[in-house]
């Protein structure tokens, strides 16, 4: 698995396809959290939202990097297609981890917030929730499932906007709604963990569906 993740990272870095989603992320957290003050949860909701959108794009790009014939070579080298898909998910989540650290620290550096341990923990949960949900959508809207990029993009956009803006829809919108309304981070830790769990289930379902659809195409 380590070898597959190393390979994925190498191809991602060499292809430079990571650049656009990372720039989008940087731009979004800059706009959404600069010069903020007061309680931290709303700022962390914004930076988690930036991660959600960027992570969808990044995962979709990562999953579609290899040409189908090259993917066939990698699948036979690894022994099983599921292992290659798992490595894609692993690589995407590792990349999200790096972005999440920036998402957690940038608001502290650029704004003047009241920081507590509970705030940081809630922020981390929010980042995790959005990383998992973004990976779930990105995987499903990749070249593995969609032959044509236009359809993949339209589907991804619909799903991302749906999760962001449909009132009360878990995990993303519901979590952001909670975070924007309260300044007591400690009270939100449990519900946020629940949302992260929902996201994890979403990712598992998306990976299974992607694997099934990709295999059916072969």
């Amino acid at each position, binding site marked *: 698995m380590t*070898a597959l993740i190393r*390979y994925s990272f190498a191809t991602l870095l*060499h292809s430079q396809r990571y650049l656009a989603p990372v720039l989008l992320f940087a731009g979004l957290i800059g706009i959404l959290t600069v010069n903020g003050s007061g309680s931290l949860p709303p700022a962390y909701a914004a930076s988690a939202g930036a991660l959600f959108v960027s992570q969808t794009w990044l995962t979709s790009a990562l999953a579609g990097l290899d040409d189908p*014939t090259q993917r*066939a070579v*990698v699948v*036979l080298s690894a022994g099983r297609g599921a292992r290659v898909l798992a490595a894609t998910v692993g690589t995407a989540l590792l990349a999200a981890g790096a972005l999440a650290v920036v998402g957690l620290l940038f608001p502290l550096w650029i704004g003047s917030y009241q920081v507590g341990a509970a705030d940081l923990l809630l922020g981390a949960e929010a980042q995790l929730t959005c990383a998992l949900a973004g990976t779930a959508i990105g995987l499903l809207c990749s070249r593995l499932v969609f032959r044509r990029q236009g359809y993949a993009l339209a589907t991804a956009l619909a799903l991302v906007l749906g999760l962001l803006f449909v009132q009360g829809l878990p995990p993303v919108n519901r979590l952001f709604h909670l975070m924007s309304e309260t300044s007591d981070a400690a009270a939100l830790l449990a519900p946020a963990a629940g949302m992260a769990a929902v996201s994890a289930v979403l990712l598992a379902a998306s990976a299974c569906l992607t694997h099934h659809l990709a295999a059916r195409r072969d």
Partner: protein
Amino acid sequence: MQTQSVGKRYGRGPWVLEDVTVHVPAGEIVAFHGRNGSGKSTLLRLLAGLSRPSRGTVTGRPAVVGYVPDRFRPPERLTALGYLTHLGRIRGLTTPDARRRARVLIDRLAVAGGPHAELRTLSKGNAQKVALSQALLVQPELLVLDEPWSGLDTSAHGVLAEVMAEVAAAGGSVVFTGHGESARTAVAGRAHLVAGGRLHPYGHESPREQRQVTELVLQRPGAPSELPASGDSSRVPPPPPWSRSPGVLTVTDHGADLVLAVVCAEADAVLLAALRDGWSALSVTRRTAPATTAPAPGPPSPPATTAAPERRTDRPAGASRAPAPPSRREGGRR
């Protein structure tokens, strides 16, 4: 390894393969021939386990499968060595082992540019060599080669045949596709013809085609057009390496000239290798092999027109393989 009444269709499309039962024993080399789009590649994908049959079963597939795709599109920016090292690690080798094995294979297959050439800079033939290398990083128990000869130079043909023989000798199975004589001259123990989505015994496809050979008359580099009268045949160098490549049936040395009889599909490759080596082509002639009787001529007609239909009907699918029209002897020496 065995397929039992395997059929394949994509979605609700037409059946690409129907009722294919084939036995691929360990230690054997099995060839699948057929025209473009006959379903050869699909059959190989089924055998490799890349694709699931819509009907029937594939049983007894070994664990370690090496696969050389038809069109190889690796990540462009990696170097040959880097790419092979990554794939070696994915196959379970340690980094030093993977690197060592990759270097050995790059050397053996003579990848131009060496280990540090970026994959995007490689020509089709060299990319094909990298594709072959990745399939051999770990000794495969099943080696699946889709059109492995395409793009390879004649010197690599020999290595490819050696590699296939080695895998078979180690108890592995080798399956490959081709659509011409190049594949026939290889070491295949069994051959099948894929046509219309079904499997047929190979050998009855076109007996006419198999009797055709191309005669190449080549002049040594630096030799004057007229051989000096003095008999210094002791200075004649040994036959060049391409004259021993697969497909060459006979080699006749006439001092300054070399006359080769080559199976038609290989003639282009041999000629190209010779030209690269500095040799000159004096004539290229397609003729029927002397061992068999020539096909009965058609109705009487002028000599100039008997040759033309002869050539046209020759190889409908591979017309480009015929390097020159027949009866070029009159071209003479340059």
